């Protein structure tokens, strides 16, 4: 690094530490740009792939009302993906590159979306737990040092609260329903609980990028802090539902003022991240096929636009006498 760059970098660090925002054309260290591209694109991919497990139930929602709600929620997730892709593009990467990285398996997305949605209560558990955990992760990002990311997150967070509430309401309805419905709700909680805790990422000691991201004000709280907050928030909600969180070690710790909870199976997490979760292949195949089958539409629209533009220029050209 040259002395000039070192000086720039020191100024940048001080500027960001002072809670000031960075905008697309401002100077930034390469590592900051790379970190953001990685994080924002992973986030965007998660929103888009996250549509698949829920999309699975749109045609099988139990009522027209539930179907409209689920459609609106899934459409929101598409919107979140789009806000985030365009925020990411301000860092100098193209949409095509981002999509290629997703489709080739080079880019990652949240491992939670590699689990299957087996019964209708899963729509409840996902809204309640998965969107709930996402909110916990996302709210601090509204104050992130990179302006376009922070602004996208403000929009996302405004929309997320409906997602969590509709999910909880599904759980509530089923928990208060027939014995079968209650069993479905419990089964969904059993399957989604641990993967939801994994959404906060590896424990702080194992989280390689955390310290730097904190310094840059991209990250505000550690993975373990947010996970603890999520557990503390969710335990009373599960009690209200009359459902049991599948963790025999879960108990209130008076001294800490927090709930203690059992160890997370990080081998499972690593397996899913590596591509060996129950639905990794299915999810990627669905994304690729949607992209490939949409290619002719993108090409036709581009050709049509070009033709229209040509017509416009030729009709406005002055006619020779």
């Amino acid at each position, binding site marked *: 690094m040259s002395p000039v760059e070192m000086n720039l970098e020191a100024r940048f660090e001080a500027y960001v530490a002072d809670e000031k925002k960075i*905008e697309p*054309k*401002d*100077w930034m260290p390469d590592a900051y740009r790379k970190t953001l591209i990685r994080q924002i694109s992973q986030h965007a991919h998660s929103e888009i792939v996250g549509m698949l497990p829920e999309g699975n139930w749109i045609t099988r929602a139990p009522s027209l009302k539930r179907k409209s709600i689920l459609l*609106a929620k899934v*459409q*929101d997730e598409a*919107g979140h993906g*789009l*806000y985030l892709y*365009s*925020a990411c*593009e301000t860092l100098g990467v*193209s*949409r*095509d590159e981002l*999509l*290629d990285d997703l*489709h*080739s398996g080079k880019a990652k997305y949240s491992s939670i979306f590699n689990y299957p949605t087996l019964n209708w209560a899963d729509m409840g558990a996902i809204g309640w737990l998965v969107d709930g955990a996402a909110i916990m992760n996302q709210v601090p990002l509204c104050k992130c040092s990179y302006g376009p990311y922070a*602004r*996208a997150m403000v*929009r996302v967070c405004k*929309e997320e609260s409906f997602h969590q509430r509709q999910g909880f309401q599904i759980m509530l309805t089923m928990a208060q329903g027939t014995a079968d419905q209650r069993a479905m709700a419990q089964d969904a909680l059993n399957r989604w609980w641990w993967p939801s805790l994994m959404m906060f990422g590896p424990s702080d000691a194992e989280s390689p990028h955390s310290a730097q991201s904190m310094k840059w004000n991209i990250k505000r709280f550690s993975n373990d802090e947010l996970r603890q907050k999520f557990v503390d928030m969710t335990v009373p909600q599960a009690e209200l539902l009359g459902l049991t969180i599948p963790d025999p070690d879960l108990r209130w710790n008076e001294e800490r003022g927090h709930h203690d909870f059992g160890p997370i199976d990080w081998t499972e997490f690593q397996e899913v991240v590596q591509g060996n979760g129950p639905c990794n292949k299915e999810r990627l195949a669905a994304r*690729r096929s949607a*992209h*490939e089958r949409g*290619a002719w539409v*993108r*090409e036709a*629209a*581009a050709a*049509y*636009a070009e033709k*229209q*533009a040509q017509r416009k220029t030729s009709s406005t050209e002055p006619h020779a006498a």
Partner: protein
Amino acid sequence: MSTSAKEWPLWEIFVRSRQGLGHKHVGSLHAADAEMAITNARDVYTRRQEGVSIWVVPASAITASSPDDKEPLFDPANDKVYRHPTFYKLPDEVNHM
């Protein structure tokens, strides 16, 4: 598995949230032409009645001031505090002026 060689162009989206307010930048999106940009902007940026009017502008048509020019462009206003009403200390009797 290459995507279509040509990406749809990028459009910057501005939304008027209600009559009486100016259009405000809300983000950007890709679309083949202006008409499609408006339709997409409707779906992406106004799903909850966030707007009553949309402007779409090809991102390539925007000329922006450079961050390096921040100082020469905006600092001269720094020492002109007399442009602000609070600069003028007036007798209490007329202080609502």
